[in-house]
């Protein structure tokens, strides 16, 4: 295995930032986010996880699908597929796992979504293993691990004198070949190293089986737990795997006399009240309990069945637990489902 010193890595990242869109954990007014960086100095190195996941880089909050131009009597449609290479540095295993879960629907389930798929092809993931798990992290309960390199292109492990590098894919190797990084060989081999890499792991929690969730569909629990829900969109937006979107045409200001608009898609959340309301006013999920139940069942029952995923669509990152203003806690909900399904 190879190792690199922090200075060498910094120089490498500086070069990378010149050539590609380098996205890394960065502090914006005190908030930690994965954002483009111009040099390695802007990168934050010590953190649990940024507030938003890397989902933004594959499925942006707002994305143009096509432009529509009305030129007199004619209509011109122009598809706007994403372009440009991106490298995301400092990816936590839970976030990389989240992208895999989104791929199961967007790419691996017909018809394939070309926007997400193109961005995925254009992106290389450089992971940074966690040393400890956060207070609300539970990735290990869902088959993940804070040092799991499985979904990365290149994985870094922080050690005393620098970073150990594990190349996971051809894409990762290609990046390291294109931009050469100063490395030293280390004496341990991979398995020795992995055994010695210490990461404090949290106690595992019991995850309900997929079939358990809908057993007591009309459980009054959903009404009770949702009473304090604000029906905002925070949980869906911070989640690495939530993917609901809205589509609409919006006008574009155009100076050339043509009537221009763009068709965009934006993040949406099934927790908000008008999510399923149709023109005419009928709303099959008028009650908060119905919406909250849908959100959890989608995560653990529906999405796995609607996509090629087959397992729970949760990475255990714990963002929703931290971010919910009223402490609606996914681990409490899971505990309840386990209890009633026994």
């Amino acid at each position, binding site marked *: 295995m190879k190792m690199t010193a922090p200075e060498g890595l910094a120089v490498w990242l500086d070069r990378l930032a010149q050539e590609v869109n380098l996205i890394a954990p960065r502090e914006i007014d*005190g908030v930690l986010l994965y954002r483009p960086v111009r040099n390695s100095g802007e990168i934050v190195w010590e953190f649990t996880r940024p507030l938003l996941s890397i989902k933004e880089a594959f499925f942006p909050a707002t994305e143009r699908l096509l432009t529509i131009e009305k030129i007199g009597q004619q209509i011109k449609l122009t598809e706007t597929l994403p372009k440009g290479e991106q490298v995301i540095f400092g990816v936590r295993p839970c976030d990389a796992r989240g992208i895999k879960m989104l791929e199961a629907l967007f790419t691996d389930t017909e018809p394939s979504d070309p926007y997400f798929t193109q961005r995925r092809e254009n992106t290389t993931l450089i992971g940074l293993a966690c040393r400890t798990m956060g207070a609300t992290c539970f990735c290990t309960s869902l088959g993940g691990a804070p040092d799991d390199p499985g979904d990365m292109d290149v994985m870094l492990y922080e050690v005393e004198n620098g970073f150990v590098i594990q190349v996971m894919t051809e894409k990762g190797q290609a990046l390291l070949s294109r931009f050469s990084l100063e490395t030293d060989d280390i004496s341990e081999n991979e398995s020795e190293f992995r055994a010695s890499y210490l990461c404090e792991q949290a106690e595992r929690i019991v995850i309900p089986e997929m079939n358990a969730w809908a057993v007591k569909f009309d459980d009054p629990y959903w009404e009770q737990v949702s009473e304090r829900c604000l029906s905002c*969109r925070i949980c869906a937006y*911070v989640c690495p795997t939530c993917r609901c979107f809205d589509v609409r045409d919006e006008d574009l200001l155009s100076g050339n006399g043509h009537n221009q608009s763009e068709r965009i898609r*934006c993040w949406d959340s099934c927790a908000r009240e008008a999510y399923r309301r149709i023109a005419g006013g009928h*709303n099959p999920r008028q009650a908060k*309990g*119905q919406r909250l139940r849908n959100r959890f069942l989608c995560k653990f029952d529906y999405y796995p069945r609607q996509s090629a995923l087959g397992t729970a669509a949760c990475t255990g990152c714990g963002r929703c637990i931290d971010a919910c203003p009223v402490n609606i806690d996914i681990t409490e909900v899971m505990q309840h489902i386990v209890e009633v399904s026994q």
Partner: protein
Amino acid sequence: MSYTYEIQTKARSLLESKQVDCVIGYEIGPRGRTRPAFIYQPEEVERLVWNQACTHNLTIYLKEQLDPQQSGRLKTKEQTPRHAAVVVKACDSRAVNVLLAENHFGREQLHVIGVVCDGIHEGAGEVGNQRSVRQFPAADPPQFQARCQRCIERVPVVFDTFIGERPSNQKSGMYENVLDDLDCLQAMTPTERTDFWLSQFDRCIRCYACRQACPMCSCPTCLYERDDSLWVGMGIGLNEKRTFHLGRAFHLAGRCIGCDECERVCPMDIPISLLNRRLIQEVETVFGYRAGMAQVPPPFVTVLSDR
């Protein structure tokens, strides 16, 4: 006698005598976080607590509880108006007055349990300090939230049950300190102020938590969330976000009570309350009006007679 005990006792008596259908208060969750609680049975009142992490403005739940026709409930809708009790601090109590003045429900439906709050801690409602760049341990001793430091009411302005003792003296000294952020804002040139606000709105993800956490934001369909994009587009872009935040601030002028919950719930640490307080300052200066001190409509609101 602790406030917790008094709240529990009152709740039990209100539920047993069927004066109310529900008591909205605070409880502590399994992770130790204080959070809103809805108590329907006298046997459950022991869940209720009072502590210095009781940050939520529980009046946001009053419309749902007291007028179930307005928002759907899984239970069958009842014909008779419901009754509820709510635990409020001084700031929250002012929201009660604004909601009553705007005819959202009747005074007789509500039993206000007003608590003389000693201040709410910074970081209340959160698990650790996850939003910051590094995980900091809680400050020792804990700091009070900015809104508590500048609180001049201290005591609920409307109540049916009063828990606590009126403080013998008003907090002094701190009041001036906390006006600092408004002063800083005013000291900026218009260009600097524009840049400042735009850079704050840039981080916004239009999660609408600020709006949902605000008792005064109660429009059935928000102007900024219409399906036909009539006033603002759907996109999560800077133009749209600026329109939303500035527009919302104007809609709250003279109605906002400065509870700062909008700012607390914001996942992106945007100083939303600062914007609202700037307008509160204007309304107080120009109209001599402070929202929620009495059950009268704010200067910019015309209330129709029907609900």
